[in-house]
Every structure is written in structure tokens, then in C-alpha cells.
């Protein structure tokens, strides 16, 4: 049973609820993790990696860059443009998440809406390539 796909859907819904309640920084956090959880789901369900594999391979690395770079390489096998689009979008959303979580900066509604749009594009790229 892979609960990560359900967690991804729940994080996306949480992002919408938080955005609708003007909790913009937290909404970006939830949107980013909805992407990360779907990527983890694909790693396990489609690529067949176990939790132990993931822990071992990502050890002593930036976990986020590690998983993003795996997907960039996988997208590259089929379509370089899709690989570049995926990579740029997820890096941008990651930067928004860092600003939202850790930086002393206000997060506007427009940034939350942009994060939602980027999330939709990332999820679509993943769903199209992995038929999930």
C-alpha cells in the first residue's frame, strides 16, 4: 500500500484550504510537498525503490536536489525539453518554499497563486509521463 499518493493529494488540498484562508506562506509549503510526495510515490511504485534504498542513496546529500536530479535524468531519457521544464519549475517552487518557510519575507497572495500554478504544471508533467 503506497500512501504517498494520498498524502500528495491531501497536501494539495491543504494548499488550497490554506490559500483560501489567506495563509499564503503555509500554502506554498503544502503545494511543494504535494509535488515531493508524488515524486517519492513514483520512485517507490514505478522505479521500485525501497525506503532503505532511498535513505542510502540520498545519504550525505541535499535530499531535495537528489530527488529532483533523479527525475531530471529520467525525463531526459525521453524528452530534453520536458526535463528542462520540469527541473526549472520544481527548482522555482523549492525556492518559493524556502522563502516561505525560512526567510524573513512576506509571502503575497500572488506568490501563493503562482506556486499553485507551478504545482499544477509539475503534477501534470509527472502524471503524463508516469500515467498515474
Amino acid at each position, binding site marked *: 500500500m503506497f500512501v504517498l499518493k494520498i498524502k500528495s493529494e491531501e497536501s494539495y488540498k491543504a494548499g488550497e484550504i490554506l490559500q483560501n484562508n489567506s495563509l499564503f506562506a503555509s500554502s506554498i509549503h503544502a503545494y511543494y510537498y504535494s509535488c515531493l510526495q508524488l515524486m517519492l510515490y513514483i520512485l517507490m511504485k514505478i522505479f521500485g525503490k525501497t525506503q532503505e534504498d532511498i535513505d542510502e542513496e540520498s545519504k550525505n*546529500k*541535499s535530499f531535495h536536489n537528489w530527488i529532483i536530479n533523479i527525475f531530471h535524468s529520467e525525463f531526459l531519457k525521453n524528452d530534453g525539453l520536458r*526535463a528542462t521544464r520540469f*527541473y526549472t519549475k520544481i*527548482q522555482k517552487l523549492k525556492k518559493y518554499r*524556502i522563502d516561505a518557510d525560512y526567510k524573513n519575507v512576506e509571502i503575497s497572495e500572488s506568490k501563493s497563486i503562482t506556486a499553485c500554478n507551478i504545482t499544477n504544471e509539475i503534477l501534470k508533467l509527472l502524471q503524463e509521463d508516469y500515467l498515474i
Partner: protein
Amino acid sequence: MNASEFIIRTIENLTEENPYIKCVYEYDNFDLTHYVKITPKEFFDINGELFTGEEGILKEFVSRFPKEGLLFFSEDDEIELDNPIYKREGIYYQKALNSHKNVS
């Protein structure tokens, strides 16, 4: 060559090949990610997303530095760089900026 040297060499090449652009570079040590802001936004495609040559740069970067990240972005992306470590303008950047100001 480490990742920062790779980024600086890339910026030098980009600003020589495209003399009307400016690049500002910051490295986030916490996230091991390199951020490069490129202006003007017209350097990117119509969606403001990618620029010509970005695909090859990212492919080489990810292959050489698999633990790190890289993002090219423009002024419409609502991302501020607090501590840039390197800046470089193409030789026609100021001229292009002034003529753009005069037109608008």
C-alpha cells in the same frame, strides 16, 4: 572546476553571446542551490520560462554536480537575491536598458 566556477564561466559565456543581458548570481549554502537572475525578461521564451541553450547547461550541470541545484529566473518570478556573489553585464546591457526606458 567546482559548481560555482562552472556557473561563473556559464555567466561569462552567456553575457558575451548575449551582450544586452545582465546576470546576478547567488549561492544558497543551506540548500546547495545556485540562483542566477537574468534580465531583461525578454531573454526568456514567450512563457518567461526557458532560454535558448538552457537545456544543455542544465544537463551538464546536473551530470557534473548531482548533489547541487541550479535555477535561472527573471524579474517576473518574484524571487529576490539578498547576497549576490557575482554580477556581470553584457557590453550593450546599459545601452539597451536606456533605449528601452526612452521608448517607454
